[in-house]
C-alpha cells in the first residue's frame, strides 16, 4: 500500500513535468496571442527525439534533454516565422483552427513514419530507497530535470532583457509597443521558447513513460487545464496549475481509478471556466 505522502510526492513529480508543458502553452498564448493546439504534438516529437537519439545514436537521454532545448527552439522559431506569424493580426479562432490542422498533420505523419508501436527509453530503471520511501530512479531524475528547467526559465524571465520584455507583454500587450520592443522578434522568440519547453518536457517524459504518436492529445488537454487554472499568460500560475493537476491525477488514480483520472483535465477546464474564468492565481 502506498501511503499518502508517497502519492503526494508522486503527484508533485508528475506535476513538475506537466507544468513545463503548461508554461510553454501559456507563454505562447499569452504573449504571442496564438492558441497552439499542436503544443501536445511537440511534446510527442520531443519524446521521439530522445528515443531516436538513444536507440540510433546511443545518445545519453540526459544529454537529449539539454539538446532538445535549442533544437525545438529553432523549430518553433521557424514554424512561427513561416506559418503562425501570418495569423497574429487575425481573429484568434483562425489560429485555433490552423494549429488544430497542424496537430493532426504532425501526429498522423508520426504514425505513418514511426508506426503505432509503443516505445520506451530504457535508461534509468529500478528504484532506490530514501527515508523509508521508495523512489523510481527515472521519476526522480525527471523531477530534477523539470525543476532545473523551470528554475532556468524563471531566472531568464526575471533577469534577462528579453525575459523582462516577455513578462511585460504577458501582463499588458500594449506595454511592449510603448517601450519600443520589437514585437515581431519577440513573438518569434517566445514561440520558440514555448516549443522548446514542450520539446524538453517530451524528452523528460520519454524517460518514464511509453511514447506513441497520439500521446500529444493527453498532454494538450492537461496543458489547457493548467493554463485555465493558472490564468492566461501567467507563468507562475501555470507552475502551480501543473502541480495541482499532477497531484490530482496521482490521487484520483490511487483512490478511484485510472479511467476516472483521465476526466480530470476536462472537468478542471469546465469547472474553472464556469467558476473563475480568470484563473486561480494573481499575476
Amino acid at each position: 500500500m502506498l501511503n499518502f505522502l508517497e502519492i503526494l510526492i508522486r503527484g508533485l513529480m508528475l506535476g513538475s513535468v506537466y507544468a513545463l508543458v503548461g508554461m510553454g502553452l501559456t507563454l505562447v498564448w499569452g504573449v504571442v496571442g496564438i492558441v497552439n493546439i499542436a503544443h501536445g504534438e511537440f511534446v510527442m516529437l520531443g519524446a521521439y527525439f530522445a528515443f531516436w537519439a538513444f536507440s540510433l545514436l546511443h545518445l545519453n537521454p540526459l544529454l537529449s534533454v539539454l539538446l532538445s532545448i535549442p533544437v525545438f527552439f529553432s523549430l518553433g522559431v521557424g514554424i512561427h516565422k513561416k506559418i503562425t506569424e501570418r495569423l497574429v493580426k487575425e481573429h484568434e479562432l483562425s489560429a485555433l483552427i490552423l494549429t488544430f490542422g497542424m496537430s493532426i498533420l504532425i501526429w498522423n505523419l508520426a504514425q505513418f513514419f514511426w508506426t503505432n508501436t509503443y516505445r520506451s527509453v530504457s535508461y534509468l530503471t529500478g528504484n532506490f530507497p530514501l527515508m523509508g520511501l521508495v523512489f523510481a530512479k527515472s521519476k526522480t531524475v525527471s523531477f530534477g530535470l523539470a525543476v532545473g528547467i523551470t528554475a532556468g526559465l524563471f531566472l531568464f524571465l526575471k533577469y534577462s532583457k528579453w525575459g523582462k520584455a516577455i513578462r511585460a507583454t504577458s501582463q499588458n500587450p500594449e506595454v511592449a509597443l510603448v517601450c519600443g520592443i520589437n514585437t515581431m522578434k519577440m513573438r518569434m522568440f517566445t514561440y520558440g521558447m514555448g516549443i522548446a519547453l514542450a520539446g524538453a518536457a517530451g524528452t523528460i517524459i520519454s524517460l518514464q513513460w511509453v511514447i506513441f504518436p497520439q500521446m500529444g492529445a493527453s498532454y494538450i488537454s492537461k496543458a489547457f487545464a493548467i493554463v485555465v487554472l493558472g490564468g492566461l499568460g501567467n507563468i507562475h500560475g501555470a507552475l502551480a496549475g501543473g502541480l495541482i493537476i499532477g497531484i490530482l491525477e496521482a490521487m484520483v488514480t490511487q483512490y478511484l481509478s485510472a479511467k476516472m483520472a483521465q476526466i480530470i483535465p476536462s472537468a478542471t477546464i469546465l469547472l474553472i471556466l464556469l467558476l473563475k474564468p480568470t484563473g486561480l492565481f494573481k499575476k
Partner: protein
Amino acid sequence: MRRPPLQKNHAYLGIAALLAFLIAIPFFASDYWITLVTLILIFTVYASGWNLFSGLTGYTNFGLAWFIGVSGYISSLLIADHSFSWLFAWPIGAVLTSIASIGVGYILLRIKGVYFAISMVALTEGTRELFGTEYLTAITHGGKGVPFVAGIKLSSLYWAILLLATLTLLICYKITSSKFGLRLLAIREDELAAETLGIRTTRDKIIAFALSAFLVGLAGAIHFTYQNYIDPSFAFSIHLTLTPIVMTLFGGVGTVFGPVIGATLFTFIHEILWAELSLLYMSVFGAILMVLILFFPQGLLGWMKEREILPRIRKI
C-alpha cells in the same frame, strides 16, 4: 444588384430537378451509391448545423461531436435495449440533445472566444471518458460499445436523411436572410455593441445553439443507425467535429450552400483517400485545414462573392 426574376426561376427549376433526381436514386442506383449519397447528406447536415451556429455567431463549436454522440447514444440505446422503433428513437434522441444543449449553452455560452471552443472540447472529451467508465456500464455498456439492428431498409434511411438535409438547408436559407440571422452575425461582429443596441444576445445564441443541436443530433441518430453500432470513442470522435468544420471552411463559412458543396466534395475525397492513402488520410485533412486558413479563409462561395462571380447576398 438584384438578379432578374428569370434567373431566379432557373435556380428554382435547377433545385427542383436536383431534388427529384435525389429522391429517385434508390430506384436505380446500386447500394454503393446510395450509401455514398447518404454519407454526403449526413455530413451536409453536420456541416450546415455547425455553420448555422458557429458560422453566424463566430462562437467556434469544437464539440459538434457532443451533439452527434449524445443523440446517437440516446437513440441507439433506445433501439438496442428498449426495443424502440427508429421512427421514435431518432426524434427522441434529437429533442433530448437539443434540450440538454440549452442547459449547456446557458452555462458555456457566457464563455467567449477560444475558451468557449476549449470548453466544448472538454465537454466532449469528458463525456466520452464518462460513457466509457465502469460506473455507467449498466446504461452505456461501457467502452466495448453497442451493436444493434434497427430494421430499417437502406432506401428508407436514405429518404429520411434526404428529408432532413433538405429541411436543414431550408432552415439555414431562411435564417441567414432573416433578421434573426443578422442578429447572430451582429454577435459575431461585436457582441457588446449588439447588446447595447438592444439585441438579446444570450437568448439568440442559445436558440441557434439548440437548433444546431437538434438538426445535428437528428443526423447523428440516423448516422449510428446506419452504422448499426456505437461506442464512446466513435460517437465522440474528434473526426466528427473536425470533418464538418473542414467542409464548411472549404465551402464558405456563413454561407447557405457552402457546407453542402464542402460535404459533397470531401465525402468523395474521403472515399478516394481512404482507399488509396488510408494511413496518411488524416495528414491530408490536417494540411487542407491549414491551407484553407492561410490562403483561402473565405471559402469557395465567399471567394466567388468577393470576385462578384456570385451576387453578394446572404441567400447563397
